[in-house]
C-alpha cells in the first residue's frame, strides 16, 4: 500500500513559515534607541532610579530651550547592576550613552580605561567653584577632573538620647557606653553594616582614615598596610567581639540596620542620613528620642574621618554630542537641581552653598554635622582596580569577629596587591 507522505513536510514548512513570519513582524519595528528626533539632539542620561528625577530633567530641558533634550534611561537600583550595564556598553563603544550617573568609586576605573571624557577649562572651573573638597576628590584621576560631583553622602552616628546623655567621641567610648547599658539591662546594641559587601569596606576605610593610615599608596599602585591600618583592624575586631553588636551584624546591610534601629533594637546606629527621613515617617515616636553626632573617631584628640559616598556625573567618551552633554550635566548637578533632589529624593548636595538655603533646614536638621564631616572626609582607595580591591577586602574582613590584626594585615597586603595587579582569582 503506497501512502503518500506529504504531511510531515507540509507541517514542517507551515511551522517554519509561521516562525519566520513571527520573526519578521517582530523585527520590523526597529526604532533606534533614543536617536535624534526632528533635529533636536537627544542626550541619554543613564542613571540609577531617583525619585522625582524627571522633574529635574524637565527643568533642565526647559532651560536648554531646544538646543538639546535629555532623556532619562533608568538603570537598576543596585550599584553593581548599574555598573554592569554601563561597562558592557562602553566596552562595545556604544554611542547611545551621553551622560553617566556614576558611583564615586568608579571614576578611577572608567577614566583609566578611557571610557569617560575629561572636564577641562571653564567647565572644570565651574564645577570646582563651591563644591566641597571631599566630593571633588572623588571625581579626579591623575590630577584631572573626570566626573562632576552630584550628590554626596557621609555616615553619621545616630543615638537614643533617652539612653545616652552625651554622644561618644571615639569607638572605645561608644563600646564602653554600650556595655554599660547592657549591664543595666537596657537597649544597648551598636548597629551598623558588617555583611561581606561594599559597606564593610566603607567601614574599614573610615577606621583606617581616622587612624591616619593608608591602604594603598598615593599613586594607587602599591598595597600599603601601615600602622594606621593595623590599628583600624584592631578597632574593628574589638568592636565585633565586645558583645555590643547585633547577632546579624555580619550579615547586615544598610536597610537591615535602619529597620532594626527604627524598631527600637539599638542604642547607637552608624548609617547614612537617609535614615532620618524614614524614621520620621515610619516611627515618629521613636524619632523624637533620636539625636545625631559626628562619626566616632579612634583618638580622643583627632576628629574622625569618614568615607565619602554619593554619585557623580560623567560624559561618555563615545557620546555623539560631548559639548552639549557637558552643558546638560552642569545643569543636572547645578545648585538648583541639587537643592530640589536634596529635599525631594534624600540626596545630600555636594555644593556647599546649597546647605545654607533656608529650605534645607527642615529636611536636613543635621546639616551642620554633615558639613563638618564633608570638609574632612576620605575617599576610598583610589585605584582603577577598586572593584577587585573591594571584593578581596570584604572577603578577608568577613566575619569581622574573625580578624587577627597582624595576620589579617599581612594577608590583606598580599591580596590587595594581587587585586591591583589584576593577578590571581577574586573570591
Amino acid at each position, binding site marked *: 500500500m503506497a*501512502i503518500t507522505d506529504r504531511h510531515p513536510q507540509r507541517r514542517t514548512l507551515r511551522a517554519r513559515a509561521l516562525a519566520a513570519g513571527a520573526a519578521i513582524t517582530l*523585527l520590523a519595528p526597529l526604532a533606534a534607541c533614543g536617536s535624534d528626533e526632528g533635529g533636536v539632539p537627544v542626550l541619554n542620561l543613564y542613571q540609577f532610579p*531617583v525619585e522625582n528625577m524627571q522633574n529635574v530633567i524637565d527643568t533642565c530641558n526647559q532651560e536648554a530651550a531646544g538646543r538639546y533634550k535629555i532623556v532619562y534611561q533608568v538603570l537598576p537600583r543596585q550599584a553593581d547592576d548599574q555598573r554592569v550595564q554601563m561597562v558592557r556598553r562602553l566596552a562595545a563603544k556604544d554611542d547611545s550613552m551621553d551622560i553617566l550617573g556614576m558611583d564615586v568609586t568608579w571614576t578611577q576605573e572608567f577614566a583609566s580605561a578611557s571610557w569617560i571624557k575629561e572636564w577641562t577649562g571653564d567647565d572644570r572651573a565651574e564645577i570646582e567653584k563651591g563644591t566641597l573638597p571631599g566630593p571633588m576628590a572623588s571625581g579626579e584621576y591623575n590630577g584631572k577632573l573626570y566626573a562632576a560631583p552630584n550628590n554626596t553622602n557621609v555616615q553619621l552616628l545616630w543615638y537614643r538620647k533617652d539612653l545616652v546623655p552625651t554622644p561618644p567621641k571615639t569607638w572605645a567610648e561608644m563600646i564602653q557606653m554600650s556595655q554599660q547599658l547592657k549591664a543595666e539591662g537596657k537597649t544597648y546594641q551598636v548597629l551598623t553594616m558588617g555583611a561581606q559587601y561594599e559597606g564593610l569596606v566603607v567601614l574599614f576605610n573610615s577606621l583606617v582614615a581616622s587612624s591616619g593610615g593608608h591602604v594603598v599608596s598615593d599613586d594607587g599602585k602599591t598595597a600599603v598596610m601601615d600602622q594606621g591600618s593595623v590599628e583600624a583592624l584592631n578597632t574593628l575586631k574589638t568592636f565585633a567581639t565586645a558583645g555590643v553588636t547585633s547577632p546579624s551584624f555580619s550579615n547586615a546591610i544598610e536597610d537591615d540596620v535602619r529597620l532594626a534601629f527604627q524598631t527600637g533594637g539599638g542604642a547607637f546606629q552608624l548609617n547614612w542620613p537617609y535614615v532620618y527621613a*524614614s524614621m520620621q515617617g515610619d516611627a515618629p515616636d521613636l524619632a523624637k528620642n533620636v539625636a545625631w553626632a559626628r562619626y566616632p573617631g579612634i583618638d580622643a584628640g583627632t576628629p574622625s574621618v569618614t568615607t565619602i559616598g554619593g554619585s557623580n556625573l560623567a560624559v561618555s567618551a563615545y557620546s555623539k554630542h560631548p559639548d552639549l552633554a557637558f552643558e546638560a550635566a552642569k545643569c543636572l548637578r547645578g545648585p538648583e537641581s541639587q537643592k530640589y533632589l536634596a529635599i525631594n529624593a534624600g540626596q545630600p548636595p555636594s555644593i556647599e552653598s546649597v546647605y545654607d538655603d533656608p529650605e534645607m533646614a527642615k529636611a536636613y536638621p543635621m546639616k551642620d554635622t554633615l558639613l563638618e564631616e564633608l570638609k574632612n572626609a576620605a575617599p576610598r582607595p583610589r585605584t582603577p582596580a577598586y572593584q577587585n580591591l573591594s571584593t578581596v577586602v570584604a572577603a578577608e574582613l568577613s566575619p569581622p569577629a574573625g580578624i587577627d590584626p597582624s595576620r589579617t594585615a599581612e594577608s590583606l597586603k598580599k591580596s590587595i596587591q594581587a587585586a591591583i595587579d589584576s593577578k590571581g582569582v577574586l573570591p
Partner: protein
Amino acid sequence: MAVATTSDKVKWGLLDAVVVVFALIPVLWIASLSFKTPATLTDGNFIPREWTFENYKLIFQTDQFVRALINSIGIALISTLIAVVLGTMAAYAISRLDFPGKQLLVGVSLLIAMFPQVSLVSPLFNIERNTGLFDTWAGLILPYITFALPLAIYTLSAFFKQIPWDLEKAAKMDGATQGEAFRKVIAPLAAPGVFTTAILVFIFCWNDFLFAISLTSTERSRTVPVALSFFTGASQFEDPTGAISAAAVVITIPIILFVLFFQKRIVAGLTSGAVKG
C-alpha cells in the same frame, strides 16, 4: 473499578493539605509583606498588623509596570509556542526516526544547556547590537527559544519514546496517512509531555532576569523581572520591599492561570487499552 471510599478521600485530602501548606506558606509571607506598611515591615508578624493597598496602587501608578507585563506576556507566550513546536518536531525525529547526526544534535543541545549563561551575555549583546535586534521582542525571543529547546527536546523525547510503535503502525494499517497518524494517535498521547514542556518553558521565559536586563534598554521590550529591579525606594538605600512584594504577587498570577489551564491536560491512562490484544 474500585469505588473511592470516604476514608480514601480523607487520606488524599490530608496529603493535599500538607502539600499546599508547604508550598504556599512562604508565598503567603511574600503576600503579607506586600500588604504591610513600611513601619511594620519588619515586625516579624506573619499576618500584618496594619494593612495597606498602597504598594499595589504604587506599582500601577505609571504605565511602566503594565508595559512590562505586556512585554513579558507576549514574549513568553511566543517563545513557548515556538520552542514547543520546534522541540516537538525535533523530539519526534530523534526518538522515532533514524538518521545520522542524531546523537550529535542531542549532545549539542545538552552542551548549550550546560554552558554558564553569564559568559554568553556579552557576546550576545554585541551580536544583537550589530544586527539591530537589541531592545526588541525578537531579541529576547531568540535566546529564550535557544535555551529552552534542550529541555524541550529531552522532555518530549522521553515521551515520544514511551509511545508504543504498534499504535502508529496500527493506525496506518487502518488507512491513515503519516500526518493523520501523528495528529490523531501520537499527538494526544504525547500531550502530557507537550503541556509539561510548555509550562516549564513559560516559567523559564517569564522569570528570566539575566538576558532580559542585558538585551533590553527601554520599555519597548523590558520584561517584568527587570522592571522589578527599577523600583525606587524613598532614597538610594531604602529597598522598596513592599512594592517589590506586591509586584511579585501580581506577576505570579499569569503563571497560576497558565498552569491551571494546562495541568488539566496532563492526565493518565491515555495509553491504557490503546494497543489491542
